[in-house]
């Protein structure tokens, strides 16, 4: 997989990149229910950060606090150098937000929505028209620009939503589940849009419940579970956290399976499937030494598969989901 690893934690001069978003000990609860239980974040300017988590983990609440929509109960956060609690206007001037639910005015046309944003950003009439036309063009909405936004498809509404967010050139963009509910084609279009934003130097904070999306887009990923950050790092770092890689040997003959299980120590058994799992990072050297061991023990499996860890393993291991089969190697 081609995964652009960007230098996010340090630059060549040894100084850390300035943080576009940082948070320490963010807490929020609604009544008895604790939604965020101490969140720490640091997102370098110009990078893509993904907050990954299941439904109800607190992703939207995090975005709402960082975008000044709601106040945190505790902790503090800075966005674009402004404190969200004491200087919300400074934060608002620097950010663009696309929430989980469509934030377009359905009663007016796509073009009118864009001009409304231009007016609220205090662009001049001609500048507003130019920006609106450019963005509608860029997001492939020119043909429907004169139609009421309520008649748009889900993908079109999302694109209009993001186009509206981009009026006024925000330097930090929050995207709350930008592809939830989109068909595969619209999702790929949205990914392309996000990649283009990054190439313009914008900092993107996105939330998603799709591991593939985080893996595809983000420089750094934080796994949010039940109001806490369960792990944080690059996709590669997260994958290393969970030694989910293994070689699986499957046998047709129960007797061969039993003798192999006896001969190999430190393996986990799956008696029903007549399969053994041997921890392995999947490198050629480890595979060769494993094959040597099998040969010298006289074991001949009917099937050998190499399983490398992916973000799914990380996700299920960290979020303690119960719908995944018991992982052999922990």
């Amino acid at each position, binding site marked *: 997989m081609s995964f652009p690893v960007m230098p996010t934690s340090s630059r060549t001069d040894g100084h850390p990149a300035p943080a576009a978003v940082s948070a320490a000990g963010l807490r929020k609860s609604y009544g008895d229910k604790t939604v965020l239980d101490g969140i720490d974040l640091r997102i370098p300017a110009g990078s893509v950060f993904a907050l990954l988590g299941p439904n109800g983990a607190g992703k939207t609440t995090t975005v709402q606090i960082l975008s000044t*929509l709601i106040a945190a109960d505790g902790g503090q956060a800075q966005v674009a150098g402004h404190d969200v609690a004491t200087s919300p206007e400074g934060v*608002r001037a620097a950010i663009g937000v696309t929430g989980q639910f469509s934030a377009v005015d359905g009663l007016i046309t796509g073009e009118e929505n864009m001009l409304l944003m231009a007016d609220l950003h205090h662009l001049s009439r001609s500048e507003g028209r130019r920006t609106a036309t450019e963005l509608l063009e860029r997001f492939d909405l020119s043909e429907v620009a004169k139609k009421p936004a309520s008649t748009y498809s889900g993908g079109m509404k999302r694109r209009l939503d993001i186009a509206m967010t981009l009026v006024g050139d925000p330097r930090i963009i929050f995207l709350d589940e930008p592809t939830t509910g989109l068909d595969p084609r619209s999702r790929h279009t949205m990914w392309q849009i996000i990649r283009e934003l990054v190439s313009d130097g914008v900092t993107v904070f996105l939330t998603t419940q799709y591991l593939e999306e985080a893996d595809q887009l983000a420089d750094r990923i934080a796994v949010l579970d039940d109001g806490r950050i369960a792990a944080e790092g690059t996709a590669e770092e997260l994958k290393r956290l969970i030694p989910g890689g293994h070689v699986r040997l499957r046998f047709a003959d129960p007797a061969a399976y039993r003798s192999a299980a006896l001969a190999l120590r430190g393996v986990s058994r799956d008696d029903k499937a007549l399969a053994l799992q041997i921890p392995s990072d999947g490198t050629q050297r480890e595979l060769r030494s494993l094959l040597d061991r099998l040969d010298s023990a006289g074991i001949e499996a009917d099937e050998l598969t190499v399983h490398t860890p992916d973000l799914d393993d990380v996700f299920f291991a960290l979020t303690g989901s119960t719908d995944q089969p018991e992982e052999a190697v922990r």
Partner: protein
Amino acid sequence: MSSLSLAVRDSSTMLRRNLLHARRYPSLTLNLLLTPIVLLLLFVYIFGDVMSAGMGGGGADRSEYIAYVVPGILMMTIGGAVVGTAVSVSNDMTEGIIARFRTMAIHRGSVLIGHVVGSVLQSVAGVVLVGAVAVAIGFRSTGATALEWLAAFGLMALVALALTWIAVGMGLVSPNAEAAGNNAMPLIVLPLISSAFVPVDAMPGWFQPIAEYQPFTPAIETLRGLLLGSEIGNNGWLAVAWCLALTALGYFWSKTVFDRDPK
């Protein structure tokens, strides 16, 4: 940009948005105008003879009752129009775009101010429309000067402002448009139990305080005085006091609710 010019600029942007909504979807506004027009025609042409007979000791004719009922109908037009405001504010709050406005560096109150100014303009337009119907069926002012006409319009705009802020508060606390419509119903019912259709003296004694001590009666009596030359008395400053109090109440109520964190 200074905070005042920011407020004016953003509020006028929001006003344009509201007027655009009203122009694209006029059915709600027009439906609400229908009620006072139907009531006007009903009371003048169906009940008119009985109403006139009951008023002037048997001698009054229909044109006298038209003159009596029109100021009440005009106030009722405002009450009806602001029900539409409660509904559209409630509708608006369920839209995701309000969350977007809240995360933008714009004047925070501009969303509500846009609604209020738009609603007052629509109310006044409604009053002019219903007033035209009244004139068409024979309503004439009796010797009102230009200044009195101006004061009459000022009074109606002030009533519209007061009722609009109350309606905005109702719209903000209502979970959906239907609830907002129901919550704002008193604004249509109150004129019915005011001096709009019959003089307060003609009502049962126990009911007279209810009709007397509510905002519509002094406002309607003042409007009658301005257009028809009847006695205004205390009603003038009572009407203005009611309007200012309701405006302040509605404003602070709406502002408090709007400034709360959205759910």
